[in-house]
């Protein structure tokens, strides 16, 4: 992570859009930053937190996005420029607070950053957050490159202050998480002093009309914004209106197709409210208009709405985009999508590679490109936990299943051996399991296990757990406590004893909270597979009511940074019966650890030394006891690896 407080105005750096956003906030004199980790927004807050002490500002990981937004609002009301940062799902969590905030105004500049994940690549859902701006009346910008990620963030603080309402930046993963050239601006010296002005006072929901005046003022400013620009001829055959990463894709498609003198490009940065006079002027440039934007047809519909109010004299161009089927309303786009749309609209047949090569490469890829599903890391304690739950559900019968929320442990069927049957939002694991647990009165007798992470527990699981106790639900909750918010980059949380700025922090004990709520609580080490499985079986078969099992084992990737692996693991080729064993390659086929492979020559299992993390869990999985673990020592490493290889050679020679 770069030091984003580098005081070198005019210098060009290669930073992520996210780091640009963080810098933009610093250049605006932000004093208070709060966020909850969520990719693709995850790098923004750490970049600020890293320099916070030096800059005399405050940065924190909040327990969830709602709390982040509320805290940032308080700081704004006390006269400090503030920022709240989250991914798309976070905005859903915040929406109730936002819907009220917009009716009441702010203090100093208050900006909401939302990073959407078209694809989705790192999310449980795909969602476009821009409609939230329209729904809740929030002025919205969307950066078209990395420089704008910084510049827009900075400018939004001024705008928010001037019109006295929260302003929002929507970015997408391919801007937020892509590095590009950013030219740095000045860093102001601000001495932050907090004091709440009593004149703010309490206001009811009356000033909705006032809010619309604020929006009109924002729209007026957007009419002459440098964030909107046109490149192309005065009269074009086709006008492309694009925003976000789609602007870069469109620009490149036109350049590659050599259509610069025929196709005009209108890049929009001020997304809501749209600057209507500006749009109207440019709509006159062509009789055909193509909209390129990611996920919803948000600008597309905005322009259609505008054109619907124009007199018959126009302009009334023909529209192409999501409605016409030229641009998909899902997934992330790329230059090829734009090329295809331009080909179709303009009757061209531009191809980026020759047809013969295309045919050949596709045939070879179909034959030889093996699928590569993502999975849990080698040595991941969640894998051991899932294995134990999977075994316990097999042993107890009655079609038991798991309901998950969001985290490494929640990633669908493969990682959890097929036991995860529902996968919704943060807290959705216990929430849904709690519902199932109330269905006994209707004959429901299947064991239900709720999956929850440690960070997720603090974020959204506590109300579900309280409800389960209060309403007498029959449910088992497993908390995968690996001491970090691992999926988004190991951020600390209230259980880790440190805060975003790296200082020691109070610890909130998950066990104590669960016990205080009234649940029965047991703590297991998932690496003790048998003991953990027995505990789970006992919990499912012999106990009723609200039960919590905390799987206590640190994230492997954090452990590996600090120390050598616990074990050196190898397959004893004399014990492994290979293809002749009745297990039918059980360790490879069922346990699915990437460190376990199959030697085609010997027809036996093998450990891939390069990948194996040395957790030793697979030792308890092999039905024939052929996987051996020995305590790791630097010397032992050589010895064991050689021993395994020599044995293999011997077996291969027979």
């Amino acid at each position: 992570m770069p030091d984003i407080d580098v005081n070198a105005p005019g210098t060009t750096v290669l930073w992520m859009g996210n780091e640009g956003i963080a810098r933009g906030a610093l250049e605006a004199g932000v004093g208070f930053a709060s966020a909850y980790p969520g990719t693709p927004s995850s790098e923004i807050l750490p970049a600020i937190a890293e320099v916070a002490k030096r800059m005399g500002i405050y940065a924190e990981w909040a327990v969830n996005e709602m709390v982040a937004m509320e805290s940032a609002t308080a700081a704004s009301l006390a006269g400090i420029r503030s920022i709240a940062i989250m991914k798309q799902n976070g905005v859903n969590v915040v929406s109730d607070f936002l819907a009220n905030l917009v009716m009441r105004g702010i203090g100093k500049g208050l900006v909401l950053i939302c990073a959407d994940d078209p694809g989705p690549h790192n999310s449980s859902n795909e969602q476009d957050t821009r409609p939230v701006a329209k729904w809740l009346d929030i002025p919205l910008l969307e950066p078209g490159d990395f420089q704008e990620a910084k510049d827009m963030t900075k400018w939004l603080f001024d705008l928010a202050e001037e019109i006295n309402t929260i302003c929002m930046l929507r970015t997408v993963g391919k801007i937020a998480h892509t590095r590009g050239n950013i030219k740095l601006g000045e860093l102001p010296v601000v001495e932050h002093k907090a004091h709440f002005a009593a004149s703010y006072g309490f206001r009811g929901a009356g000033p909705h009309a006032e809010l619309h005046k604020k929006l009109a003022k924002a729209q007026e400013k957007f009419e002459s914004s440098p964030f909107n620009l046109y490149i192309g001829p005065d009269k074009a055959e086709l006008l492309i209106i694009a925003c976000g990463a789609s602007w870069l894709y469109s620009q490149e498609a036109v350049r590659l197709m050599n259509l610069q003198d025929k196709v005009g490009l209108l890049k929009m940065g001020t997304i809501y409210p749209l600057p209507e006079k500006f749009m109207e002027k440019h709509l006159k440039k062509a009789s055909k208009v193509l909209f390129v934007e990611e996920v919803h047809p948000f600008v597309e519909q905005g322009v259609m709405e505008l054109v619907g109010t124009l007199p018959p004299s126009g302009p009334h161009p023909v529209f192409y985009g999501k409605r016409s089927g030229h641009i998909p309303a899902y997934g992330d786009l790329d230059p090829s999508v734009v090329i295809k749309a331009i080909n179709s609209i303009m009757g061209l047949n531009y191809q980026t590679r020759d047809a013969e090569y295309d045919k050949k490469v596709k045939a070879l890829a179909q034959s030889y490109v093996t699928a590569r599903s993502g999975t849990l890391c080698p040595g991941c304690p969640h894998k051991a936990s899932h294995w134990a739950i999977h075994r316990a559900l097999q042993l107890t019968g009655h079609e038991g299943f798991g309901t998950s929320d969001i985290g490494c442990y929640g990633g669908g069927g493969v990682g959890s051996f097929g036991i995860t049957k529902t996968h919704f939002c943060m807290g959705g694991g216990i929430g849904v399991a709690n519902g199932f647990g109330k269905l006994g009165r209707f004959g429901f007798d299947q064991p239900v296990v709720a999956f929850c992470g440690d960070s997720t527990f603090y974020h959204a699981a506590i109300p579900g757990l309280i409800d389960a106790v209060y309403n007498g639900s029959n449910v088992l909750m497993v908390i995968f406590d690996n001491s970090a918010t691992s999926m988004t980059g190991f951020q600390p949380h209230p259980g880790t004893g440190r805060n975003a700025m790296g200082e020691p922090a109070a610890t909130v004990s998950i066990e104590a909270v669960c016990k205080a709520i009234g649940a029965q609580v047991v703590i297991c080490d998932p690496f003790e597979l048998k003991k953990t499985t027995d505990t789970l079986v006992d919990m499912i078969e012999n106990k009723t009511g609200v039960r919590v099992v905390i799987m206590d084992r640190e994230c492997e990737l954090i452990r590996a940074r600090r120390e050598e692996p616990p074990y050196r693991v190898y397959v004893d080729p004399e014990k492994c019966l290979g293809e002749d064993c009745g297990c039918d390659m059980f360790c490879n086929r069922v346990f699915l650890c990437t460190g376990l492979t199959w030697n085609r020559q010997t027809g036996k299992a093998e450990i891939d030394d390069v990948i194996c993390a040395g957790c030793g869990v697979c030792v308890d999985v092999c039905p024939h006891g052929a996987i051996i673990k020995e305590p790791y020592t630097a010397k032992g490493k050589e010895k064991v690896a050689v021993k395994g290889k020599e044995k293999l050679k011997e077996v291969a020679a027979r």
Partner: protein
Amino acid sequence: MKKLKKDPLNLIIIGVAGQGNVVISMLTCNALLREGYLVTFGQTYGANQRGGPVMNYVRVSQEIQCSPLLPDGTADVILALEPVEALRMLAKYGNPNVTTIVNPRPIISIDAARGDSPYPDLDTLTQAIKDLSAKTWLINATEEAQKLGNPIVANVILAGALIGSGILPLDKKAMETELRERFPRAIDLNMRAFNRGIELVSA
């Protein structure tokens, strides 16, 4: 700043999460920025920390800030830390002029382990990669890294091969500067790995 033979120059660095392909992409990008180019470094990766493919798209221009993703069929160089991943990228971004630099050591996916999607025969696979490239270097980076004492530097060996191939407008010194900045404490091992990579493409 050397004039690019082709603008933009499109480099793909692909591997399996955990192989260190992001690190060498960053080193390359920073070196290019220092030379004064407009650089875009886009990524596609899954929700997992390990196991899934991670694609890095490095795009270099003297004219425009390129988009995070390149148009299909327009890669100039594909550097693959894993051989199946090389073919995966060729399928989308390959063309008759592409250069491939490939570490032929397989990482077996869980889909292959499960028997759902067999891992191809290695010789057939590398032949397919050669057939689809104007020029291919097979660099046994994992093996060479193990010889140097730690498989983790396989990525830096490949970075050496990339610079040694002469495809990028970067010389050895430019990357050495980046390596020194990135690995101040493990510089000896990384420098040996980098130089070994250069040797392997020069041989």
